[in-house]
């Protein structure tokens, strides 16, 4: 383990922990950041360490977004009562393999990690009124069997890998069982928040780790989101027709998709 890569604030008291990883950029439906934030808040996790940004992120200046200076952060939090290690970071710009090795090194050497879970939303062509699905990718068949009863749907896919898949592969090489959770998010909710997908993901984690989370606080937000879209459909027949088509399993062309995404984004705003 390259100790110089880390800033360790306190020694985590975890044994046989599970590592939950979320990425803060390219965050479809804000799913990853919201799930991690919720877990940290409700489980009162302790910040234990971070990976220093040098070598992984561009440090030639500071970026800002919405008038706020952005700092690349890659932090570990620990929840001793549930033996959970939470890691949240932007995807590094450089040296992915070294970065992912550092994540797993810390988790193995300091927290005896036994399982890995990554969380990232994936855009879907389903309508927001359809039940959400969580697509799943495992790195070991035995682990897949263990998690059969959780209602996850097996994914089949080939193409460029996301960082979560790279991490899953790196964990496999160390014989750490891993699962990537890819909750489906209607493409027109991808730029904002998809509260239903966030709640569904948290429900899975709640069941898996017996966290005793109260997820009721999402219900009002989900109702509001659905009502706003319903109002938009009543007001705008074209948008209503687009969503009707998605509900019937039909597709939209690129121009229609962009129009729908823009209209919904304007109605819901960034926060959904």
């Amino acid at each position: 383990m390259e100790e110089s890569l880390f800033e360790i604030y306190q020694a985590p008291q975890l044994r046989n922990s599970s590592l939950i990883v979320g990425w803060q950029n390219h965050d479809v439906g804000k799913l990853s950041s919201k799930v991690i934030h919720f877990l940290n808040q409700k489980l009162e996790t302790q910040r234990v360490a971070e990976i220093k940004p040098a070598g992984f992120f561009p440090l030639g200046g500071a970026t800002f977004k919405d008038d706020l200076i952005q700092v690349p952060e890659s932090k570990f939090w620990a929840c001793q009562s549930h033996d959970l290690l939470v890691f949240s970071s932007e995807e590094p710009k450089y040296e992915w393999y070294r970065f992912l090795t550092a994540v797993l090194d810390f988790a193995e050497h300091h927290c005896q990690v036994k399982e890995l879970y990554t969380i990232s939303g994936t855009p879907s062509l389903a309508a927001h009124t359809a039940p959400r699905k969580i697509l799943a990718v495992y790195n070991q068949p035995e682990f897949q069997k263990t998690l059969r009863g959780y209602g996850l749907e097996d994914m089949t896919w080939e193409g460029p890998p996301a960082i979560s898949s790279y991490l899953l592969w790196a964990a496999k090489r160390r014989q750490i069982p891993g699962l990537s959770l890819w909750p489906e998010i209607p493409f027109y909710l991808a730029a904002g928040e998809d509260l239903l997908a966030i709640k569904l993901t948290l429900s899975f984690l709640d069941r898996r780790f017996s966290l005793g989370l109260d997820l009721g606080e999402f219900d009002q937000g989900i109702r509001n989101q659905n009502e706003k879209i319903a109002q938009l459909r009543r007001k705008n027949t074209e948008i209503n027709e687009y969503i009707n088509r998605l509900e019937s399993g039909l597709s939209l062309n690129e121009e229609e998709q962009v129009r729908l995404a823009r209209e919904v984004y304007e109605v819901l705003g960034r926060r959904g």
Partner: protein
Amino acid sequence: MGIKLFEQPELERPELICGWPGIGNVGLVAVDTLKGMLLAEEFGEIEPWDFFYPKRVSIRDGLLQSLEFPANKFYYQRLRERDLIFFIGEKQPAGEGGMYATGEKAYKIANLVLDVAEKFGCRRVYTSGACVSPTHHALKPRVVSVASSTQLTEEVTRYQNTILMSGMGGREGEGVITGLNGLLLAVAKKRGLESICLMGEIPDWLAGSPFPYPRASKSVLEVFADILGVTIDFIVLDKMVAQIEGVIERIYEGFPSEMKERYDQRKFIARAEPGGITEEDARWIKEHIEGLFKKGGEEGGGKSV
């Protein structure tokens, strides 16, 4: 950062022939074709994850099957006269948006390749690439060479259709061989190995094209065949040449007629000096070439899992 050898072939003072992507993939196509023709066998690889990002993930029925990286493989073949090691790198360990390897990673990969070569007793290294030249696409490309010693430059010019870099006009024998096809030679020389680069001529206006230039690869391959004393079947490469010639001719047809006339003079003037086109022509090419080369349609939707 490691080397993985699947077997330890018994080789006697093998010579190393390397190919990486570059302008027109001239060197890579030549070396890869030679490796294929000689039925060289794979015996090792450089572990790619420290140098490259994965290019493809395969997931089936919920199970991560594989993560595919650019290949960096070693091959060997025993010929009657000599033994050979090939190294083919599918990609150079370049920074973001770059094509050519630079910096620490380039130096490391060059040394790893030479570690394997020296382990098997190699004393001579060949790389191959492109030499951008004011030539005409209808002319047979020459093979321009540089080497680590005058003894070697004398040796290499004994082969057909070769010329030393100093014989190319306007360069005074100076220049840079960009990326690993060049750096490997420098590192080899530093380690006391003989090193030679064989570069196929590519017309200047085609240097930025998105497709290979197999005519130059064929010229390089002919020199390799001469050096190694082997017979090469050019059928596959000739098909590729014919296909690309068609593309080039179609682009060339898009040149303004006066410019074409001037450019065609390149067929008849001595090739040592730049000529045949005016500065204005060069500017026209620069302004229009991307549009002429542009491939139709955008690739993919940017999704990754």
